[in-house]
């Protein structure tokens, strides 16, 4: 019978029914819809004899009273709080009078705020509660779970483990019984999809069916949990929660590189890293004593948020957003609490004050970061994150370098006599011998006889120089050359020169446009300049995309100084080093943003920029431009103006470091014996090779702490520019306190999250795993276990699992094994008529789960059965098939550069994820958008999904290759081949009627293709993979269509 609250049956069910309706009502905001579902719940309700505060009363108060009489101090009316026991008790009589009053002025909740009178049921609940003494109890989720005693149950023989006792007990109360165990084919498909995200191979299915051992089921579970595919499957959901993506997610949405963190996640799941360690390393791996590279990479979790590189944003506005995102993500993922409301005001329902929000904020507010991030790629703090293979190669290179260095030292030391002899002869010679670093030298101007390939522009002269002659500049000319110093903001380069300035201002060398502070593209380029006597290197992009680094010290006028400027291509001011006379100078970064290219068509100029008003007056000598960042030693050498003979004549003890190094380098590079020279060359070559390789290693953005820490203030109404009271880090008062002894930092917070006394983290985590397997959690609002979330359908089971999880040492694989070996999980998903009728959403678990596969599993399954799937664990994201023009249409930065070969056939976990335009065949199937943390799974069923599965080239190609496999691997007859294909996708052979339909479908398709062979060829041309020979095209095309049909079957796209 279909019951509705409208049809008058409701009151006959009595009070226990009433409160249930109420308890449920708040779970949905969908008006009339809720009624259908409520009455079904009511039927499942167990008889209850007393009003339970937390279950029955609090929801009424929260829904109707807390907005004005709750935790939010700012909105509180009449100075009355009903979220605290003492006040509520004092006001109990008044509450009763007011809620039942017919006087619209006195009645609460008030008519003038648009509230209706409380329903009779709500009033009855409050009356019952008040009459019983208005006693309070804490919200269930804020009390740490204790291990409940599993109850004795009716279907004891079916019980596999404790889970079943809790579930069966609930079924008893609902008057339902558990469904039968599913058959083995269904079970192994369910297990494989759940634990690896892929269906089983036909051979695996048959082996399981034939395995008569009592341990057969456990063996399958163990095998799947040990598969490397397991880590990939588990990582997929974690990436949703951690809002992982390959781009920044704002405006132009430039790329970032966080896949090194994704590798870490996959490996962590595969290694079964205990969930407490998994948590601590991601939240505070950088603060662990002697943290490893892996632990640093793990902290990328808190850098996966969207980040904004848009020109013109207010830096602090976005820096605050990042911190807020971290707080909200951590709270949702680990605590199952929505703290975001408290950003602007005290939480209206949960006991979370605005101050507490900012105390959490303080833990994440101390990263040395900026609101406006670099684009493309990663912003500091970041760290090179070599893959295992890269790390191995780097180790090998380091070993080779160590070996070469040892060999070099040995040969050099054994050549000590020769060195001294060379030095001696140098000192007595009149040779014209000098040496300077030559590797990476792009241009050198010594101004001895002519300008070489450069040209004079205007009047220039020559004059006695630091070495020989020098360029003399009087303000009416400079020297220039095309094609030199064409560097961008991510290139490495160095400039060096001797200068003898007569004025405090003037451009030493440049490759830049005319400068104008108000023109968007003016001044673009590279400039080494003296301003008010200070040496500055400027890298200028458009508008405010500038790096300017300046020495604190002034360069003396009218005498020779050596200047060197180097840049490491990091796009950061910190990557600039300025040297004066060979020594690194004390510098300040005047500007430090570099988000736009700095290349210009201007020539390289010595003594001027594009604007003639800023010419250098004085003399310049020995200008050198390098395509690399010079080392400190090399800068010192350049700063030594004396040639080798002059240095050799200086007593060894009186030589400067630059002079000494110059002599030594000249010897090992040019003048020493062949053995020394080759050993040096070998060492230099290996070092360069290693450096180049290391530069190619992708980085990962990580967490770091500033010292001293940034201060945190309550932000009025959440606004970045309205700081209020200063706060210190701290955890939510409603939860247990931090241990007193530990320093109050992010690490303490991380450990507090996984402290067994924390009532939330374990529950939230097991609930999310439950959702992954059953389609919905035991709490169906996995993002919110607070007072506004749903109550668990099986509170005792949730607590039992949480305690079990913690006591097992947070062993994820063991938890999953416990769940999937339960009889509850093994039930067939076919429900009895009664069960489907009374519990359409399967809340009480009277049958197994049945729901459509997640987006990535749909594609992975198709690739697998097609034989196209390329297994490779980890690595950068890949660009698979995507309809043309998708990016071009709405995004900046041009088109989509599709990958090929294996890139097309990797697991969907590795599909490149552009946050503002996610992969359409993922979004069509309800994937998270990865813009913000998502832990709840929604599933819709739309025509766009049908189109996607039928027509997306990924699935068309998969069908085609799947068809080929049916043909070549499926047997000898058409019937065998079709049946084999069906079994590959569904793990079972077709029923006779299904086999008949397959056969006739194939026949009809074949007939059609025979009369239109071009169509067959066209269909087989879909996708990059080749068509196998040896079969007629018309036949292959018919297999392809039949295979497509199998891939589109409800059963294939569903886990049941």
């Amino acid at each position, binding site marked *: 019978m279909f019951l509705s609250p409208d049809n008058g049956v409701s009151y006959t069910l009595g009070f226990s029914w009433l409160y249930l309706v109420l308890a449920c009502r708040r779970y949905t905001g969908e008006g009339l819809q809720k009624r259908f579902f409520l009455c079904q719940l009511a039927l499942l309700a167990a008889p209850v004899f007393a009003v339970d505060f937390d279950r029955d009363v609090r929801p009424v108060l929260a829904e109707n009273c807390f907005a004005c009489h709750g935790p939010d101090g700012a909105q509180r009316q009449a100075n009355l709080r009903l979220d605290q026991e003492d006040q509520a008790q004092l006001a109990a009589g008044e509450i009763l009078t007011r809620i039942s009053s017919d006087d619209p002025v006195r009645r609460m909740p008030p008519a003038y705020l648009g509230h209706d009178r409380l329903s009779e049921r709500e009033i009855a609940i409050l009356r019952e509660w008040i009459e019983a003494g208005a006693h309070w109890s804490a919200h269930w989720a804020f009390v740490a779970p204790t291990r409940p005693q599993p109850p004795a149950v009716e279907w004891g023989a079916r019980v596999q483990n404790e889970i079943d006792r809790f579930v069966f007990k609930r079924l008893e109360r609902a008057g339902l019984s558990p469904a039968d165990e599913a058959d083995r084919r269904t079970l192994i498909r369910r297990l494989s999809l759940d634990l690896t995200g892929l269906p089983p191979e036909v051979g695996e299915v048959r082996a399981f069916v034939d395995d008569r051992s009592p341990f057969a089921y456990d063996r399958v579970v163990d095998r799947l949990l040990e598969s490397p595919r397991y880590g990939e499957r588990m990582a997929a959901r974690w990436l949703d929660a951690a809002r992982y993506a390959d781009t920044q997610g704002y405006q132009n949405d430039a790329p970032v590189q966080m896949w090194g963190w994704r590798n870490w996640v996959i490996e962590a799941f595969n290694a079964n890293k205990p969930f407490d360690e998994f948590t601590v390393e991601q939240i505070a791996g950088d603060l662990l004593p002697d943290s490893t590279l892996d632990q640093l990479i793990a902290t990328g979790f808190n850098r996966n948020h969207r980040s904004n590189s848009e020109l*013109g944003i207010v830096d602090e506005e976005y820096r605050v957003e990042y911190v807020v995102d971290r707080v909200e993500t951590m709270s949702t993922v680990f605590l199952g609490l929505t703290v975001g409301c408290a950003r602007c005001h005290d939480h209206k329902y949960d006991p979370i004050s605005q101050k507490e929000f900012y105390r959490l904020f303080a833990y994440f507010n101390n990263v040395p970061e900026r609101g406006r991030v670099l684009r493309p790629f990663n912003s500091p703090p970041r760290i090179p994150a070599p893959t295992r293979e890269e790390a191995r190669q780097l180790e090998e290179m380091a070993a080779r370098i160590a070996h070469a260095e040892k060999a070099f030292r040995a040969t050099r030391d054994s050549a000590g006599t020769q060195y001294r002899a060379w030095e001696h002869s140098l000192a007595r010679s009149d040779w014209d011998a000098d040496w300077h670093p030559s590797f990476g030298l792009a241009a050198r101007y010594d101004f001895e006889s002519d300008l070489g390939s450069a040209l004079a522009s205007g009047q220039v002269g020559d004059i006695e120089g630091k070495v020989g002659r020098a360029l003399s500049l009087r303000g009416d000319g400079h020297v220039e050359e095309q094609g030199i110093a064409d560097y961008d903001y991510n290139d490495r380069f160095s400039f060096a020169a001797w200068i003898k300035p007569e004025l405090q201002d003037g451009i030493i060398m440049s490759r830049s446009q005319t400068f104008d502070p108000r023109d968007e593209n003016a001044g673009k380029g590279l400039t080494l300049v003296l301003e008010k006597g200070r040496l500055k290197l400027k890298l200028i992009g458009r508008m405010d995309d500038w790096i300017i680094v300046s020495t604190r010290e002034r360069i003396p006028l009218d005498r020779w100084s050596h200047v060197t400027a180097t840049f490491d291509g990091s796009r950061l001011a910190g990557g600039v080093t300025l040297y004066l006379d060979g020594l690194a100078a004390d510098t300040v970064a005047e500007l430090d943003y570099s988000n736009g290219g700095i290349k210009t068509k201007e020539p390289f100029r010595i003594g001027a920029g594009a604007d003639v008003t800023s010419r250098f007056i004085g003399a310049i000598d020995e200008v050198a431009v390098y395509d690399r960042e010079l080392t400190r030693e090399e800068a010192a050498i350049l700063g030594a103006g004396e040639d080798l003979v002059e240095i050799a004549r200086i007593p060894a003890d009186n030589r400067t470091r630059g002079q000494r190094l110059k002599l030594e380098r000249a010897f090992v590079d040019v003048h020493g014996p062949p053995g020394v020279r080759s050993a040096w060359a070998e060492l230099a070559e290996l070092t360069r090779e290693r450096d180049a390789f290391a530069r190619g290693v992708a980085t990962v953005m990580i967490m770091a702490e500033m010292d001293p820490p940034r201060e945190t203030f309550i932000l009025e109404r959440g606004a970045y520019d309205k700081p209020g009271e200063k706060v210190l880090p701290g955890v939510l008062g409603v939860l247990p306190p931090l241990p007193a002894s530990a320093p109050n930092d992010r690490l303490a917070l991380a450990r507090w999250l996984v402290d067994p006394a924390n009532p939330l983290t374990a529950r939230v985590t097991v609930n999310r795993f439950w959702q992954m397997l059953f389609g919905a959690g035991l709490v169906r609002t996995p993002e919110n276990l607070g007072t506004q979330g749903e109550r668990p359908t099986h509170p005792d089971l949730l607590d039992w699992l949480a305690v079990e999880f913690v006591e097992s040492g947070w062993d994820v694989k063991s938890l999953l094994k416990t769940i999937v070996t339960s009889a509850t999980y093994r039930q067939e998903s076919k429900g009895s008529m009664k069960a489907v009728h009374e519990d359409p959403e399967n809340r009480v678990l009277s049958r197994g789960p049945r729901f459509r596969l997640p987006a990535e599993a749909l594609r992975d399954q198709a690739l697998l059965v097609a034989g196209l799937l390329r297994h490779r664990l980890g690595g950068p994201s890949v660009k698979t098939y995507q309809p043309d023009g998708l990016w071009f249409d709405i995004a900046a930065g041009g088109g989509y550069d599709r990958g090929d070969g294996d890139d097309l056939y990797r697991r969907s976990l590795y599909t490149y994820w552009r946050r503002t335009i996610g992969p359409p065949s993922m979004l069509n199937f309800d994937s998270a958008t990865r813009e913000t943390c998502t832990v709840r799974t929604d599933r819709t069923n739309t025509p766009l999904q049908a189109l996607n599965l039928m027509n997306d080239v990924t699935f068309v190609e998969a069908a085609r290759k799947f068809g080929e496999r049916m043909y070549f691997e499926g047997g000898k007859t058409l019937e065998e081949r079709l049946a084999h294909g069906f079994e590959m996708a569904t793990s079972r052979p077709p029923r006779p009627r299904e086999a008949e339909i397959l056969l006739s479908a194939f026949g009809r398709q074949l007939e059609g293709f025979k009369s239109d062979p071009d169509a067959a060829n066209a269909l087989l041309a879909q996708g990059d993979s080749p068509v196998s020979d040896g079969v007629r095209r018309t036949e292959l095309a018919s297999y392809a269509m039949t295979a497509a049909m199998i891939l589109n079957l409800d059963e294939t796209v569903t886990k049941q």
Partner: protein
Amino acid sequence: MKPADPAIRMTRRHFFGRGGTGVGIAGLAHLLGRDAVSQGGLPELPHFAPKAKHIIYLFQSGGPSQLDLFDYKPRLEQLHGTELPDSVRRGQRLTGMTASQTSFPVHKTWFKFRQHGDSGAWVSELLPHTGRIADKLSFIRTMHTEAINHDPAVTFFQTGAQLAGRPSIGAWLAYGLGSENDDLPTFVVMTSRGSGRVGQALYTRLWGSGFLPSRFQGVKFRSQGDPVLYLSNPEGVSRDRRRMFLDDLSALNRIQQEQFADPEIETRIAQYEMAFRMQASVPELMDLSGEPESIFELYGESAREPGTYARHCLIARRLVERGVRCVQLFHRGWDQHRSLPQQLPKQCFDTDQASAALIEDLDRRGLLEETLVVWGGEFGRTVYSQGRMTETTYGRDHHPRCFTIWLAGGGVQPGLTHGETDDFCYNVVSDPVHVHDLHATLLHQLGVDHTKLTYRYQGRQFRLTDIGGDLIRELIA
């Protein structure tokens, strides 16, 4: 199918009623017949008799300059070149692009303004067609927003929040009101690029469903390839072959349905049928060969070209004719930081005629009454010049404090100009309209009380207008 089976009937109602749990309402609507289930949407909606059934939002992305298009400020002739007084600027924040400017010289418009029609609305010479139909429009000069950069500002206009994660206007309407057409999506989006400037990026979140179920998200009609992603059958698969395929697929799925009695299976069968119908209905919609010559004269020659704004305006009319609830156009390129006198005329040329044509066309067909049309961007532009003041050009930075949008049809009083700005077009003098106010009014015209269209997520009742939104009563006819 066994419609008499009580379990199935019950669960169908159940899933239909729940809305969020995963059954395509459109599919069920088809299965059960339109009468049985109305047209999807929430049963309590509309909250009151709607003025409009459809909305067409002509979003001009980038921030069109109200100073050069709508909000005529004759005093700027004298003030040209003078420093923006601090008493006007009042220390309000600027974007990082001009915050470091040392001077904020007031810049007049180079374009001529005149009054149009009986209403006497001021419109610049750049928009002659808009001027021509000014009596059918209502101008809001005092629109203001909270964000000063594109991404948060556009997101705010489309979702009521600056940060990602909330449903777009169209998604709210699809969720609340459902569809009037079983063969086309409820919410359609089209994007075009301006020739004045390529323009700022757009994001799928602007028509996304946020925390609402994803079936409420806008379906983007594309100008390249398939108009709807994956709409066309692969090469070699004709419509007949697809029909054959679907017949066999349904036959197999029905066997499964007998086994499981899961309403999801029935819905899936229905959705494949809807997909098949869309394969016909969408190309029919996009095929403009039946439109008479006069229509192309009205909308402009560029309406013949796929991907243009004019084409999209014409398609918008065809969508509304077919009962599509919400049509959202995005036209890029209105971000004139510099070279405004060179870029803005091109932007206007691309859009002016077609925007006006859409209004006239809807009006002639009697559709304007039931269709609310909105024209506007995410913010306006500053009165002061960005960069150098030169003889040859000027530019303007983002300005969130006041800018102009217009509304037409859908029960909006025509011929009004609402709100007043100061002589510098820098601050609102009277009748400010916040983004939430606009949203509240749009929903109201569609029969929705913005405070009651809510969705519980993360323990909170969310709505498009967050905690704000006052109706612009003066505009409501």
